[in-house]
C-alpha cells in the first residue's frame, strides 16, 4: 500500500543542533501511527517538517504519492492536514470560538455574509461549544472567554477539538494529552478512535506508553533525529518500546 503521507531523507538543522538527521517517515491510510522518542529526539521537528510549519533543509515530503512542498501550515491545511502543535498555536487574547475558526471563519448566510462579509458568531460559538462538550471539557464556563484565561489543560482541549473538527485527510497531534486530566485524556483517546473510524489517519506523538499501546496501529520509534524502527504494538511490550527508544536495547529492523 502507498503511504498517504511520506517523508524521505528529511534534514533540519538549527545552528549547531541537528534536529532531523536524514529522517524517513510513513503514514498509511486509515491508521493511527504513534511517534515516540526521548525529549529532544526530534519528534516535533519531524511533524513540523511534514506539516509546513518548518521547511526542511533537505529531503522530500509526499502526499498520496505526489511530492509536495508546503511553505506554510496553510498549505498543508488546504490539503486537509490538520495539526495540533506542541505550543498549541492559539491567539491568547482572542476567544475560544475565534481561535477554533481562525482562518476558516463562517459567514452569515445571504446579503450580510456575502456582501457585508459578516461573521456568523452564534453559529461558530454553537459549534465550538459542541466540540468542547464532545471532549468533556465542561469546566469551561464561557465560550467567549479569552484563551489566555483558560487553564493549561483547557487550552490543550480547545486545540485538539479544533484539529478534530477540521482535519479531512490527516490529523497530527503533538502530545495532545500532555496537560490534560484523566477524564479529558480519555475523551481525546476516544476522539482519536472516532476519527480513525471516519477513515482519517492520525499521527500521535505521546510519551504516555499505555495510551500509545492502547490506540496505535504502528509505532514509529524516533531517536537522535531519525527513525530508529517501526514496531507493531501487538508484537512488542511497552518495555521493549522504551528500551528501543532510549537505546537500552538493539532495535529490530525497520520492518512493521
Amino acid at each position, binding site marked *: 500500500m502507498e503511504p498517504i503521507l511520506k517523508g524521505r531523507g528529511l534534514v533540519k538543522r538549527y545552528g549547531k543542533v541537528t534536529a532531523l538527521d536524514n529522517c524517513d517517515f510513513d503514514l498509511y491510510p486509515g491508521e493511527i501511527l504513534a511517534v515516540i522518542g526521548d525529549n529532544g529526539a526530534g519528534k516535533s521537528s519531524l511533524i513540523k517538517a511534514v506539516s509546513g*510549519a518548518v521547511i526542511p533543509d533537505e529531503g522530500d515530503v509526499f502526499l498520496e504519492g505526489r511530492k509536495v512542498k508546503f511553505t*506554510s*501550515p*496553510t498549505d498543508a*491545511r488546504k490539503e486537509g492536514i490538520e*495539526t495540533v*502543535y506542541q*505550543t*498549541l*498555536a*492559539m*491567539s*491568547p*487574547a*482572542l476567544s475560544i470560538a*475565534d*481561535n477554533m475558526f*481562525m*482562518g*476558516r*471563519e463562517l*459567514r452569515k448566510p445571504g446579503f450580510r455574509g456575502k456582501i*457585508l*462579509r*459578516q*461573521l456568523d458568531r452564534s453559529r461558530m460559538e454553537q459549534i465550538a461549544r459542541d466540540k468542547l462538550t464532545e471532549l*468533556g471539557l*465542561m*469546566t*469551561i*464556563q464561557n465560550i467567549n472567554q479569552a484563551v489566555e484565561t483558560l487553564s493549561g489543560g483547557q487550552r490543550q482541549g480547545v486545540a485538539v477539538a*479544533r484539529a478534530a473538527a477540521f482535519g479531512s485527510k490527516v490529523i497530527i497531534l503533538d502530545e495532545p494529552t500532555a496537560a490534560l486530566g*484523566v*477524564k479529558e*485524556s*480519555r475523551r481525546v483517546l476516544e476522539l482519536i478512535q472516532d476519527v480513525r473510524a471516519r477513515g482519517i489517519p492520525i499521527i500521535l506523538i505521546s510519551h504516555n506508553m*499505555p495510551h500509545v*499501546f*492502547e*490506540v496505535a496501529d504502528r509505532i514509529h520509534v524516533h531517536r537522535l533525529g531519525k527513525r530508529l524502527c517501526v514496531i507493531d*504494538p*501487538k508484537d512488542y*511490550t*511497552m518495555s521493549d518500546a522504551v528500551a528501543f527508544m532510549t537505546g537500552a536495547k538493539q532495535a529490530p529492523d525497520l520492518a512493521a
Partner: protein
Amino acid sequence: MAGHADDYESVIKTTKSEDVAKFAAHRKGALSKLQHALHVNPALVPLFVLLASIAVFGLLLGSKFFSPFALTLILQQVQIVGIVAAAQSLVVLTAGIDLSVGAIMVLSSVVMGQFTFRYGLPVEVAIALGLVCGMICGYINGWLIAVMKLPPFIVTLGMWQIVLATNFLYSSNETIRAQDIEANAPLLQVFATKFNVGGAVFTVGVVFMVVLMLFLSYVLKQTAWGRHVYAVGDDPEAAQLSGVNVKGVLISVYVISGLICAFAGWALIGRIGSVSPTSGQLANIESITAVVIGGISLFGGRGSILGALFGALIVGVFTLGLRLAGADAQWTFLLIGALIIGAVAVDQWIRKVSA
C-alpha cells in the same frame, strides 16, 4: 496490549452527562455592573474619560466651552488626527507602529495638488493618483515588514524620512494657495463643505472621520479579516500556525493605512484650504497618542478602534479647554503631557479593578 492492570480510566466512561460547572455568581450591584461593562467593552473606558473631561471643562469654563461652536470646533480640530489615528490603530493592532503616517498624508495631498496644478490633470484623476500614492507608500512599508521581516518602527522611521524628503524635493516647498484651489479645483476642498445640524456646524471631514471609524470598527469585529488583524497582533507565530496568511494581512493593513493617510491628506486640504508641504509634521506622535489614550495596546492584538477616536477627542478637549482657560503654550504642553499619563493611568486602573 491495552491491558494494564488498574483500569482506573474506565470510571470516567460512566459520567458523560455532566453539566457545565456553575460557581456561585458574586454580584455587587451597580458599580460591579459598570466594571463588568467596562471590562467587556474596553472602548468605554476612554469614552468615560472623554465625557468626564468635557464635564470638567464645561463646569470650569461654562458656556464659552459648552457651546455648539466650541464643541463642533473640537471635532474640526481633531478630524485630521482622528483620521490618521484610524490608520495608526490598524497598524498598532498588528503590534506595529507607523511613524510615516504624517509624511504619507502630506505627500498624498501634494500629489493631489501638484498633479492638478502643475500637470493640469483633471482634479478627479489627480485625487485618485494621490490616493494611489498613499497606497504605494503603505505597500512599501508592508512589504518590508511582512516579507523582509524588518521591525515596523525602523521601516516606518526610514520611510518617514524618505517620504518627507521626497515631498520637499518634489514640491520645492511650494504652497498651492487656497484661492487658486477654490477657483480651479474646488473638489480638493470638498472635505471642508459645511452643514448645519441644529446650530452645530459639521464638515464633510468630520463626518468622514466618524463614519470611517464606525466602518473600521465593524470590519474589525465582524469580518474574518478583522479577526486576523487581531490574531496577527496577538501572536504572529500562532496565527501563522493556525492558518492565517500573516504576510497578506500585514501587507493589507499597511496598504489600507496608507490609503487612509491619503484620505487624511485630502481632508487636510479641506481643513487648511491650501496644499502645504510643511504640514503634518507631528501627525505621527499625535496619532499614536490618540491610539494609546484610546486604550489600544502598543504590543498589539488588544483594544478597540473606537477608543482611538475617543483618544483623539480627549486630546482635542484638553487642548481647547486649556487654551480657553488661558494656559499659555508651554503650560498647555506640560498639562497635555500630564494628561497623556493620567488618561492611561485611569484606563489601567479601571481595567485592573474590573479584572
